[in-house]
């Protein structure tokens, strides 16, 4: 068991590195894409069927491809962006591309949860559309956005388990290669326990943050 600890520790760090980097990028891209989806949606500030449909199709494409297959399909792009298609850094590319549309849909839902009457009221106070987004839409949606990003982070942990396919390392990779293929049940169980702990910590932190920001 003790000889397992360094390996488990490295794998946990790899998972955390992949997930943190992917979540940060997904949050940035997801906020942009999700805001555009919400603003152009039929219930949004500036409904535009054409733009909304286009963005929706775009965000549905990568969500419809199983993540393991997405990794393989994206190998050339990964090689182009990162210089290699193998390793933890390479795994971040499919994670971000797979996670962004998912994040965007979560952001869209959180934003559409903001009372449209509130946006109209703020427009009558003299807000420009961009002021309405930055000063009202996003700040009012913060508790919802925190909950959305909590779900995103947990999904990214799930996705990252498949990153072993490109030598990304991490807990999922360790569990499959040592735990499953070499019949090391102790490795399998340890990986699962660490994963469960990670998810619990993320959910707990997310819930608390959301509650702290929720003034309603």
């Amino acid at each position, binding site marked *: 068991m003790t000889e397992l600890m360094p390996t488990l520790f490295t794998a946990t760090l790899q998972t955390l590195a992949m997930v943190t980097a992917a979540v940060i990028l997904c949050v940035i891209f997801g906020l942009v894409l999700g805001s555009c989806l919400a603003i152009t949606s039929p219930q949004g500030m500036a409904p535009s069927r054409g733009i909304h449909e286009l963005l929706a199709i775009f965000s549905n494409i990568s969500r419809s491809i199983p993540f393991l297959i997405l990794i393989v399909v994206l190998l050339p792009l990964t090689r182009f962006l990162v210089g290699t298609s193998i390793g933890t850094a390479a795994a971040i590319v499919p994670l971000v591309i797979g996670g962004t549309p998912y994040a965007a849909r979560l952001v869209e839902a959180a934003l559409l949860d903001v*009372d449209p*009457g*509130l946006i*109209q*009221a*703020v*427009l*009558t*106070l*003299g*807000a*420009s559309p961009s*002021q309405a987004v930055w*000063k*009202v839409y996003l*700040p*009012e949606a*913060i508790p919802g956005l925190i909950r959305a990003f909590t779900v995103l982070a947990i999904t990214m942990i799930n996705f990252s388990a498949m990153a072993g396919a490109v030598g990304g390392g991490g807990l999922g990779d360790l569990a499959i290669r040592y735990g499953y293929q070499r019949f090391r049940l102790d490795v399998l169980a340890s990986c699962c326990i660490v994963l469960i702990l990670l998810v619990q910590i993320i959910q707990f932190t997310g819930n608390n943050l959301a509650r702290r*920001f929720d*003034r*309603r």
Partner: protein
Amino acid sequence: MRGQSIQRNSPITYTAPSAVYVRGLTKRFASGAGAALDAVDLEVPVGAIHGVLGSSGAGKSTLLRCIARLEKPDAGEIVVAGSDWTSLTGAQLRRERGKMGIVFQQLHLLSSRTVAANVALPLELNGVPSAEIAPRVRELLEWFGIAEKAAEYPAQLSGGQRQRVALARALATKPRILLADEPTSALDPETRTSVLNMLRGIRNQLGVTILIITHDLRSAAEICDSLTVLDAGRVVESGPASQILNQPSTDVTRRLLAHTGSPGTTRFPVSLVHFDELGQP
């Protein structure tokens, strides 16, 4: 200013300049999207408290949304504080918005901002330097008696306090006109009285012209100088409040009066302060 001495269908001729002047306002919707308006005329003299009365579906909300320019009218004219708002859009409309403060029925305070930050919002949006915002906000909160609530969030306040915050926010840019959507409905009697007193104070002490849109005839009777009765998207009656309440000339008005439990013959207390005594703010 527009709207001087305009002869109307009703026998009343206003001689004071209009704060809000609406002529032939027409708005149609695809079925179900909202109540239509048909050639609505409305004049609110400077310094008046004017009420637009009507039951639900009469077109009150559509009228409010058109005057607030959240909707573009299909036809007609909207003049606010001397500027033609009818076809303003974008930045031009935003620059004009400071002339008219609006309090919505649901108040629409920002739950993520403190009381002070809510009141500061229109000033921030209009590019007022932050050094000037704080004193103005303090002044407003003190005027409305909620200075000690500055750092609290709307959810922590009572209904009456929230109403004060909404009024303070609507008046932050020192508008000449206040448009109030159902300011007294869904309030308990005590809070209702206090809101009416505040509206009187806003007109009498700050010299702000007030346009109230409501189905609450009792409040309108207590506070309005003049009234316009709306039914099925048309103006059915318009004139001094005392005249309309005591000698209603249409069945629509009589029905409205009957619904409040007061027959048309009851004398309503009508605000004694008249706009012409105030002069222009």
